[in-house]
């Protein structure tokens, strides 16, 4: 009864008074970590997955956890950080850059978070990164990997390697799989990630004498991609590099299938796990498609992440980005733990140190001097019978 009254008052009461009172009311000693993630809008599936990954890591630290280290040992952290449970505050950024900035500002300026975690979209990470850096708040991006992120500044870290690394891998995979490749086609979304991938892939191709004969950039969230597919296949490239987010991927793969494109034979996808959940309703359109994905399928991933995720949320991980969110949150906790305070500069320096020793579920997270992840294992996968399995070239 009491709760209901309060909830009613909440709805009826003046929004601002209640709202602005809320932020300062919960000021305890707890370390605050802020997360902005797209819970609504076009990227909301990935956004939810990233939130779950981060929540998993924070829950573990709050309960006390033996964190695995690269040298085979473990480091016991927690329960909690600096003597109190971590307070994780998650804000929706609506898949819009302006709302991402609103959310990040609120987290830093109202909640006073020690570390900002967020986003896999480079377009939304960039302005927040700039802002956080200017205000000397440590910001860890989960999955944004446009090349332009490198220059943001000393307070910015990236838990995923920049896109450039994937291009050569796609080409190598195509060469190994179908032998003689002279021409390449690309089909990527017209966003910072997609265009970055196109540039990186075609540059890597040109370096070994392969020509990009069609470079298609498509607008996301459209209802028809047939003209794009027709342009892609018109010059008959030997192999095609492609990427799409879940919903778009389903449509593109479906329309390619209906147009009789030999995607299974010639297409090589980047970050293919992005659409596995979405394409499940019509798996035949993606049957046999090969591609690369951040290698997150190791034993550590299985035991420490996937099992716990299924346990907590009752379904398989939605995308690969939840695992990167988990690692980003772990790094943040480890760095605060090592720094012994919430001082930004101390955290920033500790971040470099812990990244060299922490054994992430997505692999080795060691940062270079710019705070960019240096190593990234990309595994080769094939989509068959409704799931992604490691691919071994014949």
């Amino acid at each position, binding site marked *: 009864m009491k709760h209901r009254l309060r909830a009613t008052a909440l709805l009826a009461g003046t929004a601002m008074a209640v709202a602005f009172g809320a932020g300062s009311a919960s000021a305890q000693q707890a370390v605050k970590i802020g997360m902005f993630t797209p819970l*609504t*809008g*076009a990227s*909301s*599936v990935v956004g939810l997955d990233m939130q779950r990954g981060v929540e998993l890591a924070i829950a573990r630290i709050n309960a006390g956890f033996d964190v695995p280290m690269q040298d085979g040992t473990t480091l016991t952290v927690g329960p909690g950080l600096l003597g109190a449970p971590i307070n994780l505050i998650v804000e929706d950024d609506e898949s819009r850059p302006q709302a991402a900035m609103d959310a990040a500002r609120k987290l830093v300026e109202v909640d006073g978070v020690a570390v900002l975690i967020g986003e896999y979209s480079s377009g939304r990470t960039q302005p927040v990164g700039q802002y956080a850096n200017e205000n000397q708040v440590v910001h860890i991006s989960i999955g944004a990997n446009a090349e332009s992120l490198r220059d943001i500044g000393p307070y910015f870290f990236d838990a995923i390697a920049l896109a450039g690394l994937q291009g050569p891998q796609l080409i190598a995979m195509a060469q190994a799989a179908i032998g003689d490749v002279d021409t390449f086609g690309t089909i990527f979304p*017209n966003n910072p990630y997609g265009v970055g991938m196109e540039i990186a892939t075609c540059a890597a191709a040109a370096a070994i004498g392969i020509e990009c*004969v*069609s470079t*298609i*950039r*498509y*607008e996301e*969230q*459209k*209802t*028809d991609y*047939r*003209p*794009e597919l*027709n*342009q892609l296949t*018109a*010059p008959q490239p030997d192999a095609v590099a492609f990427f799409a987010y*879940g*919903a778009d991927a*389903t*449509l593109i793969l*479906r*329309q390619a*299938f*209906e*147009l*009789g494109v030999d995607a299974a034979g010639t297409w090589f996808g980047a970050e293919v796990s992005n659409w596995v959940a*979405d394409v499940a*309703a*019509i798996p*035949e*359109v993606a049957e046999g498609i090969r591609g690369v994905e951040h290698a997150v399928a190791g034993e550590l991933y299985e035991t420490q992440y996937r099992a716990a995720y299924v346990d907590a949320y009752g379904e398989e991980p939605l995308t690969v980005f939840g695992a990167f969110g988990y690692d980003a949150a772990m790094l943040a906790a480890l760095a605060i733990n090592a720094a012994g305070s919430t001082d930004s500069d101390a955290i920033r320096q500790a971040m470099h140190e812990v990244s060299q020793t922490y054994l992430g579920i997505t692999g080795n997270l060691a940062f270079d001097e710019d705070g960019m992840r240096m190593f990234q294992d990309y595994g080769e996968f094939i989509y068959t019978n409704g799931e992604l399995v490691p691919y071994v070239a014949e």
Partner: protein
Amino acid sequence: MLQVVIDGLIRTAELSLIAVGLTMVYGILRFGNFAHVEFATLGSFLVLPLAALGIAFPLAALLAIVATGLVGVLLDRAIFRRLRSAPPEMLMIASFALGIMIRESVRAIWGPSPYLYQLGVLRPIRIGDFGRITPIQIGIIVAAAVAILVFHALLSRTRLGTAMRATADNAPLAQASGINTERIIATVWLIGAGFGALGGVLVGLNTQVKADTGFALIVEVFAATILGGIGNPYGALLGAAIIGFAESISLAINWSPLLTWLGFEVRGFVFIPTGYKTAIPFAILILTLLVRPQGILGARR
């Protein structure tokens, strides 16, 4: 090239139904209903719960279309009827707000991820060497054609059709000659919103069901309507064909022979970049308005 024709035909089928619905309401109430495209979204989503109840798809689709038509009538009663004497820009803004409400309500209820009708994907049928079409797509084209023909018969052969045309031509005169114009308006909303819903179901059938389906088509649909001449259903059909084919053909033209002939050094294929795809209907729209503002089949006022 055959494939381009097939693609254009499919696109025309989807666009024309939505555009015909828009042009009917436009013709009678004299305002551009920006919420109209959301009837397509709503219709395509309403199929989902019905299909989940185990109702066969064609019946579920029919029920969803009728339900959307009724929603159209209700919205007219609740909102637009009160604004009959308001200036048209007020109606446009009201409809813009209403469109957002419908779209975002759908998103709130069904969530952000797209859905697929559980019909599976059918293997394409090969036509000659270069064309492919799936049975579902043939069905889409046939369904659109049948709907248009039925509508044509209704408009030209029935008393209701005559009354509708009379009301569209001159509402006060129609009223003076004994036609219950409010009832005609309600009928037009029912049919218009229903046509929009059918278009949405067809788009959903061909692609996927998502909250942005309607809004992603708004300029195409308006362009088709204006191209054909407001209030003219046959014009809307023609406009839809022009837009549908313009998108697929203009992106399929390889400009390299022309450029080579003009003396440019070109390698491989040269297409209009797909990054500009959405600009094509926009550009056609603006050009039409500049050259022939009353539309191709529209009468000069």
